[in-house]
Each structure stands twice: as C-alpha cells, then as structure tokens.
C-alpha cells in the first residue's frame, strides 16, 4: 500500500461530489418513467381499530384515478417478513404475527397502510384518497411499553399474550447472582432510552415498473440494501424469482438504519405496477415519513453493578423492556438482543454479566435499527451506571474506568463476543489530553463566576460492528448471511470498474473503494469507478448498515483485487517467458524478480482480452469476484468527552465542547472518516439533548413534524474535536473496524454525565434524555425541594 496522493490514507476529495454539488444527483424521486402513474398511500389515522368494508367507489370515480386497491385485493400476497428469529429463555420461538402490506382486518398504528390510490397525477391520487370510506371500530390502543404490559392491556395481536414478542436472555445468571452475593458495593440505575425518529433528509420514495413482454419487474427504491429488498420482496412477498425482479437503489439521501427494512410500500407499489402494467411512482411526504419510517431505540431498563471494595467490577445485571412497535420490521427483533445484550462487557473486565430483554408489541410505528442500533442503548446504560458507581464509591470517574479496562487480547467476554484487539488506555489518554480534562475545574470556576453551572462528562466505550460470521448469526436466528461481495473488472485498456454489494448513501464508497483499488493495482484514481445499488449489475450483496461497508465490503474488494493480481501474474509470466512464481507486482507493473523486465497492468489487461499470445488453459478476461464472510465482529472503541454549561435560571444546556478519541481501525480516507464521526456525534447529541418521539396514550403521534420533533440544527452544535489512535483489526486484511455509528454510540452518555456533573452541586443526581431546558429546570426545582 503506497499511501500516495490518492492512495490508502489520503484525504482524497470525493468522486460523488461533482454530481451532488451541481444538482445532478439522481435520487429516486428524480426518476420518471414513460407512462408513469402516481400512487398515494391512504394511512390509518387510528392507532388500533378493526376495519370492515372499505368503500372505494367514489375514489375510483374521481378524476384521473386508474385504480384503488385495499388489503382485500392483496390478500393472496405474502406478508412482510422479518429477518431474525429470536428464541425466549424457555426455548420457545418469538411470536411472529403476519404483517399484511395493506391492512386486512385491523389497523395497528397511526400510519398503517390501508389502501393505494393510483391516478394520473399525485394530486389526483391524494384527493381521491379522501373519498375512501373505511368502516372502523376503534379499539383501545397500547402506545407505550407500560401500557402494553399492564394487566388486562388490549392485545395488538391475539396470538401474543401480554403483548410479549419474546423474553430473551444472554449471559450466566447464576454466576452473576454469585458475583452480587460476594460484592462490597452494589450500584443500581433506572434508565429510559428515548424513542427517536430517524429523519433522513430524503423522504422514502419508490417507482415500480412491470414489463408484460418479458415479465420483468423493476423497483427503484430508497434502500440501503437493494439485494436484501429483492430477497424479501421476491421470495417472501410476491413470489417472484430473482431474475425477474430488479431492484435499483440509486443515489439515496441518508439512511441511518431507516432505509434497511423492506417496507410495505415497496411491495404495494411493485404489485400494483404488475396489476396495471404501468409504472407507479410514490414519494413519501415528510408528515407521513414521521409515522411510517421505522423509529429507533425506546427501551426501559434497570441495571445493577456489583463492585469490590477497590472499585473492580464483579458483575452486571441488566433487565430491559423494549418496544418493537406494531409489526416486526426487518431487523427489529435482533436490535434489542444480539446488537444490545452482547455489548455489556463494554471495555471492562466484568467477569459475570447477565442481560434479559422482554420485547413488546405496541400500537406505534415499527421500531428497527437506527444509527448504532442496540449499541447506543447498551453504552448509554453502562456508562451512566459506571459514572454513578464512581460517585457512590467516592472514586474518580476516570480512574474507575481505567481500573476495569481490558488489556489482554483476545478477550472472551461473558456475553458471547470475543474482542480481537484494542488499546483503551490510549484513546482515554488521548481524549483526556485533547479535552484538557485536567484543567476543567478552572473552567468550572470561571463559569460559576458568570452564573453558569459547568460540567464535564466522559464515556469509554466499545462497539461491535461489521456483523458477523454467517454461521454464527445463523445459529443466533438470522435468516440471511452477512457476507459481502466485491467484483473488480479490469477493462482491456486498463481502467477499472468495481462492483460492490454495499450501498453508499452518504458514506463516500465511490471514493474510498476507488482509493483501495487504485492503490493496490497502481492505476490512476480517476481510472477506477465504483458501481453499487443495482441488483442487475452487482453479483449479490447485503448492503450497508452496522458500520460494515469497509470491514466486510472493502475486504471483499481487496480479495477480488488479489485474485486479479494472481491472474495477471500468470499472463505476465507468459509474456515475459518467466515462471509466475518469479513475477512480482508493484505500482502497476508485473516484473520478473531481480530484473528490469516488466509488463504494465494495461498491457496484461489488453493481452487478457486479446489473447493471441496467451498461457495455455487460462481463461481470457481480467475480472474477479470475491465473497467475504467476516471471521468475527470488529470492535471500534474510543473515549468521548462532553462539556456543558447549564443556566440554572432557565435550565438551558449549552454544549460547549465535544472531544472524541477514536480507534476505528485502518483509515482509508481521513476526511471521510472524520465526516462520519461528525455525523454520528450530531445524531448522538440530538438524542441526548433534543430529540424525543412522543405518543399520546391513544396512539396519536404527538411529535409528528419538524415543528415539534427537535432536529439538531447548526446552531445547536459546537465544532467537534476529533482525535485518532489506530489499532488494526486483526482478522480482515485491511485492518478496518468501522466508523459510521461511533458518534451515536459513544457520545450520549458523555453528554448526560456532563449535565449531571454540572448540576450535582445543586443536588441533581439523575437526568433523562433529552435534557431539554424544561426537564433540566424541573430537576433543579425538585432538588431545591
């Protein structure tokens, strides 16, 4: 790896920017097909109701309307599947109710799809939808975990008594109980992880087409994983073979997890296009996005930590209740289990850990992955608890962490994961220095003189990313493999097309992957283009989530390049009349070792496609594909420090500084990596200080627009102080760990710990997210008694 101006390690300016900056991006809603019609999805305004007849005659007769379809029309079509089967403590499988794309006998959340109206224009479709008359009998709704588990609560699904989907556990309960019996101190905490609405700035959209001449379906959709959509939509919902169903996810305007799931609208659109033999386009309005994009988080937990007299952690016991919403979205069931419970060792040597999670159905939007998915919830709980332990034991917050760090690797945690490598002291030291932790008391005093309460908070954390060996996830209930494919096509004149099964919706894969390939092959950065997002072009892929694209998808590309080089050596050896073992490849040239006789990659490529003088028995062409199945999770880790000033008169929290010291493994493009960290931090700060999805008891979404759901804006955030200490992942050849979720995982507890630190002198010892001025002010008033 040469690390040259455009190679691995260089902050190369992005290939994708030219089109995005000039308005030439091609997002789903920018696509129009000849003869297209427009679909409007009529959604339930009630959270829970039986539905009877749906009267559509008036809508069908409205101007421009071509068709109206309801759940009854789609009854023969398969339901929307879920991707992960969880087993409860007693070995029983989770309750897995059906999810019809269009509601049939019941609606279960405000936003549930009831009918599609198809018309000449979007406006006609929407107006006609107002004419649909749905016979409904409203039922009492359960809009929260508390309501779902109450005695005699109404049931979202008759087959799920108590509204429980599963009651899962991980870790050794007996060993954990024993640790508590032996403990000198027990510290406990109750936390809520606030429900969030993802809000990618591009609303979801789809346009489906059916060609009656070939029987081919094409669906353009805002997806992070087009092949996964093809698998679920084709095999489970519509019963279409893969070669008749093409999924294109073109430029996608952010995902953050909310564009992973296969959504009902994708099935409805595709099926409707088949019925009508015309393209049908649908673009979600933002107000509908609030009530139909999957939401994130929404946990209630209680936990306790056992410590010895010196502050060593002996045991951790976590009990969590998770809200899954009204239906099981694609990865919904694994987020509060295998992406959550297994993270509770954190960076600490706690020898006994036990976590139990009960997940509930409620009359709310389905909950699924959101930036971090499970790991922010775990990290928030753990890092709040560790801080509380330090305070209760009278220990320094940094020292209690340092005392318990894992320092020997590989490290087998008591909750399934085996960490390959890391250096938690290094990121801690780096962050403390960068944030001037030592000088904080001076700043606190200076703020106090201005009438402000200043606080500092820390979080030391680990992530589990790049999920994971397929055989392992399969044994845990995953219904898909989690490998990735990469293809590298060297063209006859030496330029290169790279095909990846990951999907870029902001992450800059077109640049990062081109850097890897151009560096390895010694070809110009500009001579390498990366293709993604089209099931007709890419062999296969699992898409982008869980910070997997570089560690898993990048590795597949790396392995494909290695294959290309191996084949190139055989061709070069033939041309140079040498043996392939004697050929070395460097900087784009195949050289006979110890000589100056060489052939360029371009010459070898041309020979591969014009094989007049060619090794016997070798296939022409220079194109290789590799599938890479990861050997383990990757474990990015780091320390985040937040500093706040609270105005005790108003409760207003100003975030004055955020410092990160992160170990994300090998960095290909530092500029892009820092950008990912910034975005994740903003998301995590949003959760800590601003964002909260609120449902009323009757299941109406109270925070259903940007007017009352507080998104982080530029003025809410400081600039970030980002630092790196890199250790390499030991089990992929790039040494990559992942970076997309770091900020949203690490920073929320640092912010809340800082707020509590600021307010502790006023008697405030607890704070929930988001720490809005109102909540902070009330806490101060309560503490004042």
């Amino acid at each position, binding site marked *: 790896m040469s690390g040259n101006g455009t190679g691995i390690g260089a902050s190369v300016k992005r290939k994708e*920017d030219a089109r995005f900056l000039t308005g030439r991006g091609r997002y789903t809603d920018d696509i129009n097909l000849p003869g297209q019609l427009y679909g409007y999805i009529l959604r339930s305004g009630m959270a829970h109701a039986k539905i009877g007849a749906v009267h559509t005659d008036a809508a069908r007769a409205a101007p421009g309307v071509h068709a109206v379809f309801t759940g009854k029309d789609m009854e023969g079509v398969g339901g929307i599947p879920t991707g992960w089967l969880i087993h409860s403590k007693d070995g029983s499988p989770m309750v897995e109710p059906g999810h019809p794309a269009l509601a049939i006998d019941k609606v279960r959340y405000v936003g549930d799809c009831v009918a599609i109206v198809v018309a000449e224009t979007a406006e006609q479709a929407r107006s006609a939808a107002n004419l649909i008359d749905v016979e409904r009998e409203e039922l009492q709704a359960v809009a929260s975990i508390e309501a779902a588990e109450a005695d005699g609560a109404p049931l979202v699904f008759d087959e799920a008594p108590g509204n429980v989907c599963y009651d899962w556990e991980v870790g050794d309960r007996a060993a954990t109980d024993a640790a508590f019996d032996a403990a000198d101190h027990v510290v406990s905490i109750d936390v809520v992880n606030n429900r969030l609405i993802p809000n990618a*700035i591009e609303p979801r959209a789809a346009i489906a087409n059916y060609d009656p001449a070939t029987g081919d379906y094409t669906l353009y959709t805002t997806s992070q994983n087009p092949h996964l959509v093809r698998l679920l939509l084709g095999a489970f919902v519509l019963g279409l073979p893969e070669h008749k169903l093409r999924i294109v996810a073109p430029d996608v305007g952010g995902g953050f997890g909310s564009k992973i799931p296969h959504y009902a609208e994708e099935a409805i659109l595709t099926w409707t296009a088949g019925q009508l033999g015309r393209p049908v386009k649908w673009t979600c309005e933002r107000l509908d996005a609030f009530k139909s994009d999957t939401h994130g988080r929404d946990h209630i937990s209680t936990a306790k930590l056992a410590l010895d007299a010196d502050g060593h952690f002996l045991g951790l016991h976590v009990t969590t209740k998770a809200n899954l919403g009204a239906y099981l979205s694609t990865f919904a069931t694994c987020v509060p289990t295998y992406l959550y419970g297994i993270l509770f060792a954190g960076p600490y040597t706690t020898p006994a850990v036990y976590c139990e999670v009960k997940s509930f159905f409620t009359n709310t939007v389905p909950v699924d992955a959101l930036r971090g998915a499970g790991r922010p919830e775990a990290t928030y709980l753990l890092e709040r608890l560790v801080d509380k332990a330090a305070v209760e034991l009278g220990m320094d917050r940094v020292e209690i962490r340092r005392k318990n760090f894992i320092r020997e690797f590989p490290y087998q945690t008591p909750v399934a994961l085996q960490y390959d490598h890391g250096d938690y002291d290094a990121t801690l030291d780096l962050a403390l220095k960068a944030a001037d932790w030592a000088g904080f008391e001076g700043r606190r005093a200076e703020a106090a003189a201005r009438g402000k309460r200043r606080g500092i908070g820390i979080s030391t954390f680990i992530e589990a990313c790049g999920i994971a060996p397929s055989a392992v996830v399969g044994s845990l209930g995953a219904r898909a493999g989690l490998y990735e494919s990469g293809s590298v096509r060297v063209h006859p004149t030496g330029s290169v097309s790279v095909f990846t099964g990951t999907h870029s919706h902001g992450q800059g894969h077109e640049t990062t992957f081109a850097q890897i390939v151009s560096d390895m092959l010694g070809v110009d950065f500009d001579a390498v283009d990366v293709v993604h997002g089209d099931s007709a072009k890419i062999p296969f892929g699992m898409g982008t989530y869980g910070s997997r694209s570089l560690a898993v998808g990048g590795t597949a590309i790396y392995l494909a390049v290695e294959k290309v080089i191996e084949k190139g050596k055989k061709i070069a050896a033939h041309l140079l009349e040498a043996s392939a073992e004697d050929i070395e490849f460097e900087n784009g040239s195949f050289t006979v070792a110890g000589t100056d006789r060489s052939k360029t990659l371009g010459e070898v490529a041309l020979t591969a496609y014009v094989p007049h003088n060619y090794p016997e028995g070798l296939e022409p062409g220079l194109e290789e594909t590799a599938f890479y199945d990861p050997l383990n999770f990757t474990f990015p880790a780091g320390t985040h420090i937040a500093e706040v000033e609270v105005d005790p008169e108003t409760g207003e929290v100003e975030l004055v500084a955020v410092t990160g010291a992160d170990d994300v493994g090998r960095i290909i493009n530092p500029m892009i990596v820092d950008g990912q960290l910034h975005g994740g931090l903003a998301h995590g700060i949003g959760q800590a200080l601003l964002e909260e999805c609120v449902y009323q008891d009757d299941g109406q979404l109270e925070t259903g627009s940007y007017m009352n759901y507080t998104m982080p804006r530029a003025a809410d955030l400081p600039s970030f102080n980002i630092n790196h200490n890199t250790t390499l992942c030991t089990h992929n050849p790039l040494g990559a760990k992942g970076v997309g979720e770091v900020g949203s995982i690490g920073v929320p507890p640092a912010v809340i710990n800082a707020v509590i630190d600021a307010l502790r002198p006023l008697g405030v010892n607890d704070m929930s997210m988001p720490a809005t001025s109102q909540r902070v002010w009330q806490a101060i008033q309560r503490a004042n008694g």
Partner: protein
Amino acid sequence: MPTVTMTVNGMERSGTVEGRTLLVDFLREHLGLTGTHVGCDTSQCGACVVHVNGSSVKSCTSLAVQADGADVTTIEGLANGADLHPMQEAFREHHGLQCGFCTPGMVMSAVDLANRNADPSEHEVREWLEGNLCRCTGYHNIVKAVQAGARAMGGGS
C-alpha cells in the same frame, strides 16, 4: 390556468401551471431541474432553497406564479460551465456534504449569506443555517465550507 414566464439559470422558461403549483414543482416537474429537493412539507428543512432575484427562498413555500417575471437561480445554474462556483468548490474541498440531499439548499443558502457577509464567523454561519437541516454531516464541515466559500467569493457571487 395561468402561464408563467421566468428566467431560470439565465434562460427564459415558460409553462402553464395551476394557481397553487409550487415553485419547486414547477422547477422539478415542468423544467426537469431535479437538483432542487423536497425534504419536508412544513417549510422547515431548506432542501428546496433557490434564489429568486438574488435572494434565497424556500421554493416549497413559494408559488410558481409568484416567481412570474423573476430571475431564478437553482443549483444547476450556479457553476460556470465546468468550473464550480467558489461555494460549490468549498463544499467539495471541506467535505461539506455526504448524501448530498440537503446540499443544493445548503449551497444556495450559503451563497446568499456570502453575498451579504463576505467573512462570516462560525457563529454567524450557524445562525444563518437555522433553516437548513442536514442529518449527515453534523454541520461541522458545512460551517467550514461556508466560511471558506464566502472568503473565496470575496464579497460577491
């Protein structure tokens, strides 16, 4: 139905619209200028910002008929041929964009700020961008880009 005529990116464009047709729909649907995006329906996100007679305007909140006779610039009209506008170049240089969806509105908004304030402080940039949401970048690099772009523009576009 009314006919509107406006200068869009330096060319005279006309179309027949309904009275309630939004400027953004006229640009996207009638003129095929899909660089201007729609991210919300409550005038909160700023993905739709264009210039009307030199000032930034949320095109999801203005009617096409209101822009009759006006001079409209969209993101497609900012660059000078193959040369990016200094603000576009600054966004590229400082990685002020990720998914690119908020970007056209951000850039158009930033150019308007730079026309009013040739050397905005970080605080002034953050306050100015009050009406532009970005979920990807955490604004950190957008702020740097806007400051650099404003300086590069040297007090005018």
